[in-house]
């Protein structure tokens, strides 16, 4: 496997070509790299990462882009602890290279924490903050160049193998390289040496020369370079990006090719709406230009590469020409820290998939969420979460990182019979972990397939990868010997009978919520799931569909046929009512629009999809909806249904508007389907939506905790 071949970076060698790239984590304390950082990177080192780039540190006090952004002058102890931990995590000869990420965010930073003006080549306000930066004076330029060199010296002193300098989507150096942001017209709009053909290289050249002069030829100098700013009117276009990369090749050992800029920061780490491997054409073009100058510079691919097969293909596997020398697989290793170890062990099919959902790993947000993963909640919480496959009493993992594959050997001291009711992701994770710890697990599911609400959510536009977590959990459960029964209703009587000699965990999911508008048929709130009526129904001409029922029409029935939206829904325009502002309504509106339906999306907020700000999809989602011709009705609440449509009311002015439609899709919040819990004496533990309908992350977190609590209960 090419992915597992050693990688030469300058004068150093990484054990393989899997890169854990620089990214915001919010794991720091104030501006210091913390013990949480150490545990986070150590875990990836143990799991087989070849190169680890530590979160970018600001090289100068004028840069404080987010509250927990590390400051290089305070990072030396943290870098040293990370390097030591990562090297110790693997056997000799397998130590990953550890690079310190270095950056100055320039006009894309923030003045909120520093209370200082932001520095930039020219006074071009950033699109996001609209704050006008200060055009840098010569002494300030010199200070930042010196800051980069000083930070690199500190990183090397801490034992880092080198540095990775940010010339990517959020960087002052890129701002100097680009016509979008560098309008100085002075010497800093030009280049040193023979590169003065419209390139604005000088600042980058001086920074990199300063670093190289400090760290010498032995240490690694890598850069992350935006080679396409997606703004062809003045920005770096791929051809120019390739020329910049070639011009810098003399100085650097590695170039990670990325795209995006002030108008397209979403291109940094887009979610599932963007095709995985979207940069592979760009990286090939840049690599060709770089290799023409210096063949020993490593060109690293980036861009939603989360499948090992795609990574292998990018490196020239499967008899294809190689496009890159290494692959950044950051989110893949947030989802499964053991990626490298599993590949090396031939367990590629056991790698926990990255869903490209960005729900927990995208943390550039003022609330400072800690980096984590919907499917692996322990990511980012290495110090405060128990490893689900390690003994509770001992904590921690085995040094070889193969805890998942030999999980069964670590039997709980008192194996229990366990009944898990409901095979959504909460139930699947509960069953998986319980079985891995040696319990005898029986998992029962009412419907014919496993995965629950995730399966239907995955039918939404751009969300297909969500289903991968259900597939993976199902495969792991089968591998762990979980007894799986589908298609049978589980009633209270059965649970009570089984509970005599089983521990019971209820993961029974959700049911439709109430409809606080006039004229709507209310979904059944019966306690008995078998009596649950369809959540959808007709009222006087306008048909009301729940989001789940609508998406289910796109899924195969037990007989394998797909009914499809068009067959299921009456003809005519559709109103999508979204009081949540989340992913579901947006994906449904897009799906309907893609089938040619006239769609109006009604929401209570000033923008559509407010909750998407965390995943980075807020602006892209609004753009996609507008491009698809979806009408957006904001600041409004749904008041009533009529024979010909719906009545909505402006939240603030009270003005009422009628919208004609044949179908109303209700994307409101759900209620816990806790009938079985109530019917069995409210005594069995619950997990996931059965407690409160939320997201995949909470379902997996609670399913896992319920499984671990079995051990506690059994006295192990």
């Amino acid at each position: 496997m090419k992915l597992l071949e050693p990688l030469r970076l300058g004068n150093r060698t990484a054990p393989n070509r899997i890169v854990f790239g620089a990214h915001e984590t919010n794991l720091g304390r104030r501006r210091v790299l913390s013990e949480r950082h150490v545990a986070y990177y150590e875990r990836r080192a143990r799991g087989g990462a070849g190169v680890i780039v530590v979160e970018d540190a600001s090289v100068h006090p004028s840069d404080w882009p987010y509250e927990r952004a590390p400051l290089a002058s305070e990072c030396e102890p943290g870098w040293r602890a990370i390097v030591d931990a990562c090297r110790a995590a693997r056997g000799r000869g397998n130590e990953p290279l550890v690079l310190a990420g270095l950056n100055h965010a320039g006009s894309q930073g923030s003045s909120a924490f520093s209370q200082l003006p932001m520095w930039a080549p020219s006074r071009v306000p950033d699109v996001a903050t609209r704050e006008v930066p200060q055009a840098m004076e010569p002494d300030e330029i010199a200070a930042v160049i010196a800051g980069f060199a000083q930070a690199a010296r500190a990183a090397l002193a801490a034992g880092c193998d080198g540095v990775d300098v940010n010339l990517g989507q959020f960087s002052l150096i890129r701002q100097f390289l680009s016509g979008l942001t560098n309008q100085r017209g002075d010497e800093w709009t030009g280049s040193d040496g023979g590169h003065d053909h419209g390139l604005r290289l000088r600042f980058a050249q001086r920074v990199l020369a300063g670093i190289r002069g400090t760290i010498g030829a032995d240490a690694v100098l890598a850069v992350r370079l935006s080679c396409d700013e997606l703004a062809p009117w003045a920005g770096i276009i791929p051809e120019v990006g390739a020329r910049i990369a070639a011009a810098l090749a003399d100085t650097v050992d590695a170039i990670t090719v990325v795209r995006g800029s002030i108008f397209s920061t979403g291109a940094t780490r887009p979610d599932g709406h963007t095709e995985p491997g979207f940069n592979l054409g760009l990286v090939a073009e840049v690599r060709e230009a770089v290799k023409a100058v210096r063949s020993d510079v490593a060109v690293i691919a980036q861009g939603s590469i989360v499948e090992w097969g795609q990574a292998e293909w990018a490196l020239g596997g499967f008899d294809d020409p190689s496009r890159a020398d290494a692959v950044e697989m950051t989110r893949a290793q947030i989802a499964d820290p053991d990626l490298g170890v599993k590949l090396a062990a031939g367990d590629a099919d056991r790698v926990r998939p990255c869903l490209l959902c960005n729900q927990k790993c995208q943390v550039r947000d003022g609330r400072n969420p800690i980096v984590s993963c919907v499917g692996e909640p322990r990511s980012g919480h290495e110090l405060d979460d128990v490893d689900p496959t390690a003994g509770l009493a001992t904590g921690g993992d085995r040094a070889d990182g193969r805890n998942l594959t030999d999980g069964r050997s670590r039997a709980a001291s008192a194996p229990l019979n366990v009944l898990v009711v409901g095979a959504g992701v909460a139930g699947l994770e509960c069953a998986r972990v319980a079985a891995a710890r040696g319990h005898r697990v029986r998992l029962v599911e009412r419907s014919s397939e496993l995965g629950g609400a995730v399966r239907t959510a995955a039918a939404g536009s751009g969300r297909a990868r969500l289903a991968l977590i259900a597939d993976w959990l199902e495969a792991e459960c089968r591998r762990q010997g979980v007894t799986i029964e589908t298609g049978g209703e589980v009633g209270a009587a059965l649970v009570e009978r089984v509970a005599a000699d089983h521990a019971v965990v209820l993961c029974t999911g959700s049911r439709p919520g109430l409809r606080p508008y006039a004229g709507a048929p209310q979904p059944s709130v019966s306690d008995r799931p078998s009596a649950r009526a369809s959540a959808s129904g007709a009222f006087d001409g306008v048909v009301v569909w729940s989001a789940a029922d609508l998406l289910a029409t796109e899924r195969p029935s037990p007989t394998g046929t797909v009914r499809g939206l068009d067959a299921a829904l009456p003809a005519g325009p559709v109103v999508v009512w979204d009081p949540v502002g989340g992913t579901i309504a947006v994906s449904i509106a897009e799906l309907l629009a893609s089938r040619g339906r006239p769609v109006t999306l009604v929401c209570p907020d000033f923008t559509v999809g407010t909750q998407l700000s965390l995943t980075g999809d807020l602006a892209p989602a609004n753009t996609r909806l507008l491009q698809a011709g979806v009408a957006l009705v904001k600041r409004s609440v749904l008041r009533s249904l009529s024979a010909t449509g719906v009545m909505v009311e402006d939240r603030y002015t009270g003005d009422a508007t009628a919208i004609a439609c044949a179908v109303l899709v209700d994307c409101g919040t759900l209620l816990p389907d806790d009938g079985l819990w109530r019917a069995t004496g409210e005594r069995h533990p619950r997990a996931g939506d059965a407690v409160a309908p939320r997201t995949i992350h909470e379902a997996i977190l609670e399913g896992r905790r319920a499984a671990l609590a079995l051990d506690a209960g059994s006295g192990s």
Partner: protein
Amino acid sequence: MARVARYPRLFSPLRLGPVTVENRVVFSAHLTNYAEDGHPTDQHAAYYAARAAGGAGLIITEEHSVHPTDWPYEKLIHGFSPSVIPGYRCITDAVHAHGTPIFAQINHNGGQASSMYSRLPVWAPSSVPDPLFREVPKELEVREIAEIVAGYALVAGHCHQGGFDGIELQCSHSSIVRGFLSPATNHRTDDYGGPLARRARLLLEIVAAVRETIGRDLALGVRLCGDELIEHGTTIDEAVEVARMVEATGHVDYVNTSIGVATATLFMIEASMHVPPGYAMFIPSAIRKAIALPVVGVGRFKDPLQAERALDAGHCDLVGIVRGQIADADFVAKARSGHVDDTRLCLSCNQECVGRMGLNRWLGCIENPRTGREAEHDRWTAAVAIAARPQRVVVVGAGPAGMQAAIAAADRGHRVTVIERESVPGGQVRLAATVANRAELGDVIRNQVTECRRAGVTMRFGEEATLESLQALHPDAVVVAAGAVPERPWWVPATDPGVDSPGARIVDVTDVLAGRAAPAGRVTVFDELGFHQATSVAELLADRGCVVEVITPGMVVGQDLGITLDLEQWWMRASAKGIVQTTDTLVMGAGPCADERPGLALQLVHHPTGGSEVREVDWLVLCVPAAPADGLWRACRDAGLRVERVGDCVAPRRIHAAVVEGQRVGEQL
């Protein structure tokens, strides 16, 4: 003491159970984001101590959480952890050093939260998602209700050990008790839901448990919401009824009041200058008529006279003044001593206090650089004495940056002269404050002018400073605070003076506010700033009878009004005034209209779709970034003068940036 007679009621003592307050001004509970890792910090102590030193009658701290399921925002104090007690001690010792009583507010935010930090299900009376957080909570089991009650008692005990003089139960704004009291969020059918007496059961259980824990040594207060301003929410009649129940327990020493729900109607809790002062007085007034306990009234109290009148009219027994004391920690002392004109009046702009809370940043103040930095300032003032050698400092420009630099320098003992080109101070703030509903912004000018006068700064108006005129003054240091000048985008056509042309119908927002331009008819306001500039001028022109449209490349017109809680009311006013709002759109060109129609043809591009259209209007008003007026700074620097620059002539930004920069440079001369 003759001065006190000006505000006899404000400065009369009052008993709250075992505690006597010397005056009626309460620094009521509010978030600060000063906590770290769930613990109070030195900054908390310094912040509260500054208000105690400034004369506040009573301080109530921000909330302390009673249970690990409650973690709605990152910098919440985890009162349930015993490790907070040393921090409590630091706070109470610092405040008691000034003889001021201090209470702790304790709370569980209930469903008004997410699991982002706690990684636990959110707890609430019913599975009703909060309008802000949108996370479906877990409907509390009865044993969990008991856990919450026990949490209140536990934290009350921590507060007692930490030296607090009283406990306030937060039952409004954002609280599980509010959640139980309100029919909007309590849909339970058990003993904790249904009729008011059952919805109030949790509150009464908590009152009993807390009183049992603290005994009679500490005061106990309850903060109730008089009107949630939400559908099916609590209104004043039920609030009065709950106040009666609270009084009937015999356990409670006072009732505090509030209006609104923090996660639904925050813009009416922390009302900006667009809401009239005293707007929430009906609540304490109604409650005070029903009960004998002392009642606290709140709601945008700007000055001591207003507070005195509220007491005199019998609306309340105490007055909660938060922002007034954020802006001026000595608010009470100045009122007591009669130096009311010296009070740094709060602008109710919400930019750096309320605005920073929503963004998870530490609380500050637009015009008081010390707020939020008290702990640091205390260290500085210990280290930095008055300048050994007073210098002659000349400041060019009497906007917020220049005046703040002058104040800071004069406070260090320097001899400071401010030279201003205009005949009046204030710079662009003066223009912004000319719009009727933005007038209170102008208080910052009044405040700074007063400070300058107190500090002995010489102000010269109507004088244009040049390199030569500055050199003639032989200053030791020059601070250039010359502001910014409007800049026209590249696509604006050139104009000939005095000739009507498309370019002549394109004006800057400052031209309109200063009266240099008077657009009429169909007016488009193009906004790249996203703040009050565009919305203010749009309202001004609509009031003058123009047909107004605001166009922005952003997703929302007046995007940053959301931060200051002005967005909702802007929308209401704009709708009433017929102002059209167009988003996601750029103006890319301007020229004459077709067929020689009068006016101006604007080329618009809808950037998400690339769609373009032409809009014919009579005038275009630009709200776009200005250019720094840094010429004088460069000239001084090149001539070898010792020169600094502050404010918009560094980079055109908002008032706060100007003030903190002025302060920083002024005190470092």
